[in-house]
């Protein structure tokens, strides 16, 4: 577990629902389609469980971009997608206050066979991060400004 800072690439965290994005990511795999390796996909039941605090902490720890791949209207959970949207919205506000570019957080409905939308989200987040840089630089800049 050596800690190094060799190949620095933006880190993308994908919170993907079992009934949507996670199954969608498996489907992309079954089709053997390539995307970037700087992605870490974590399965979630419904992202409505994540508070603003969770997202902010993740950015502070060095996650450069988060894509919440929820199930949208396909969600098996009543009220889950709506609450997820509320939490993401609240997080945008907090990000604004903290000077974290809100493009770092993206909510996208991905279905179990949405291979193109999945790849589009990953590619777009990579493009965004290439443009806006690392979150820690952004946070450091904020520190300097104060």
């Amino acid at each position, binding site marked *: *577990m*050596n*800690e*190094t*800072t*060799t190949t620095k690439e933006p*880190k993308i*965290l994908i*919170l993907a629902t*079992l*009934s949507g994005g996670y*199954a969608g*990511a*498996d*489907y*992309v*795999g*079954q089709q*053997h*389609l*390539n*995307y*970037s*390796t*700087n*992605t*870490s*996909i*974590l*399965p*979630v*039941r*419904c*992202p*409505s*469980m*994540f*508070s603003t605090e*969770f997202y902010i*902490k*993740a950015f502070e*720890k*060095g*996650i450069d971009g988060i894509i919440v791949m929820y199930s949208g209207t*396909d*969600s*098996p*959970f*009543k*009220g*889950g997608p709506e*609450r997820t949207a509320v*939490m993401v919205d609240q997080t945008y506000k907090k990000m604004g206050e903290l000077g974290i570019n809100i493009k770092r957080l993206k909510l996208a409905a991905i*279905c*179990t*066979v949405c291979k193109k939308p999945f790849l589009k989200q990953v590619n777009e987040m990579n493009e965004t991060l290439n443009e806006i840089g690392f979150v820690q630089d952004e946070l450091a800049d904020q520190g300097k400004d104060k």
Partner: protein
Amino acid sequence: MTEKTNPKPEETKIGVYVCYCGGNISDVVDVEKVAEKMREHPNVTIARTDMSMCSDAGQSIVENDIKELGLNRVVIGACAPSLHEHTFRGTVARGGLNPYFFHHVGLREQDSWVHSNNPGGATEKAIRLMYAGIAKANLLKPLDMIKLKAERHALVIGGGVAGLRAAYDIAGRGINVTLIEKTPFLGGRMAQLETVFPTGNNAREDLHSLINEVRTHPLITIHTLSELVNIRGYIGNYDVQIRSQSRGVSGDNAEAALAACTQEVPDDFNYGLTKRKVVYRAYEGCFPSTPAVDWEHYDGKPIEIDGQKVIFENKKKTFDLRIGAIVIATGFQPYEPPRGDYGYDELPEVVTLPQFIRHMGLRDGNVGELTWKGHPVRDIAAIHCVGSRHLAGVHEPQPDGILNNYCSRVCCTATLHQVNELLDEYPNINVYDFYEDIRTYGLEHESYYTEASKKMVRFLRFHGDQRPEVVAAPEGDTHPVLVKGKDYLTNGLEVEVPVDLVILAVGMVPRPVDDLVDMMKIPKGDDRFLLEVHPKLRPVETPVPGIVLAGTAQSPMNIQESCNAASAAAAKVAVLLAAGQVELDPYVANVDLDKCEGTGACIEVCEYEDAIVLETMTVEGKEVQRAVVTPANCSGCGNCVSACPHHAIDVQGWEVAHYEAMVDAITMEVEI
């Protein structure tokens, strides 16, 4: 047996296993390197690799390590958790651990298969994901499955051969079945066929023997003209609402109504080749035998029966049932070419294969000469792959924007079987078979092709992007239509074949079931057919527990395959419901009473009735309100988790702390 203690994170002894997946993972990911890195982790007691962790031998390694090394957590990096998480929970339990002391990391679908262009990056990602898995495993708590009473009652949707077979097999295991069929009659598409491959039997005779078994089975209740309109609940306990339409006629007035009715519409049973009355039987010998009113087309005008004017009324009724599991057997419909495609719907001499089969069935015995619309038929062209194997950029997508790029599988054999039968009866007819590839798959089904060749069927092979064209022959020609195309069996020679009839071997498309898909939250594939969890390992299950698939609702299948799938679906249902109880994953909300302040914020965002309530309890001598979860009513969505200002509620097995630990692991830089 299962360990109930929960060691502190620093005391965990984790066994980590990284699967080669027979090369599927190890061809890209340096699996040995991953295991080597895992050994550096302070909580990892052992890290091993294996060619196939899911094999008996692979699982035994884990079981033995748990026993011999005293492991109290297991992390396995392998294929998708949807495939083997369940398998490995069993492995861990057999080793003597609580099955929830296991975490599965997907290294195949989400790593090696998507990063084949970057093995170094894939290995680094595998290490990162495995570290995240270890971080979660450190925090896992022992959990017990939630046991709930399961209703020993299955609902089968669709009364075609697949639905009938599934219903009969489920009932045979002592489980009640309600079968609902949307139309007034049972049998589905099979009833519209004549002799069928591979047996050569009459389709309706075989079908009727199955219908007889189903309708006389004491545990099966049949509702025709019925549809599912609402569903709530979960495996073992679905509350469904069914809406039934009335037949409009009954008992004494049924036959009289049938005789008296004069309003006619195209007969859908004969694919529009004939007309039928709006009070009708699908065909002679159908079940139920009582005629029904075609509500879609009935003009509402009175019909005079025995001197009395009668207006039929569709008395709809809805009823509720509690159901343990559901089989979806909603079937397929033949592809209908757009007007003008291959001359369809413009040239009277162009028919689809289903129409041709009906035409053959409608003949009054062997009439010596085959005729079509009164004209003798001596030359026939059959064109394969109509509505199947469409190519992007060459063929137009369907109105829904989807390209029918799949092979419908059944049509090649069905076409050649029909052609062979035809030539048995009319050996002097010439058949020209235009095909892209002949796919008469199945044991000895090649014989349909060889038999057709022996019967002098002329095969002409086209390329998928250069399909034949069907045009009207010039006035005064010997035949009414010409089929033009290039034959690649003769080096792309331009051919022009004059024929009396063109048969389009149309593909299969699923029946539109978007209402069911929306209600049940089941996925559809790229091709619009309903999608199973895994084509090999879980071939009839949908991701929604307790909802399984049977027959052509899932993909093109012949009758034998439809029945195989239906029997598999029935076996699955029987396994689920036989014990009268189902076990659900314990992923429900759990309140930490030490942190709960009774704010009720969790209840405000909870959409599930009675899942969380505030109860009065005594804490340090004071009466206070605290949140209490009823596991059977909780979906485990986690709405409450983000709402609690005191972080006092979490979803068991999916805690926020797990994610925070995983993020820590992911953000750690790894060196390889």
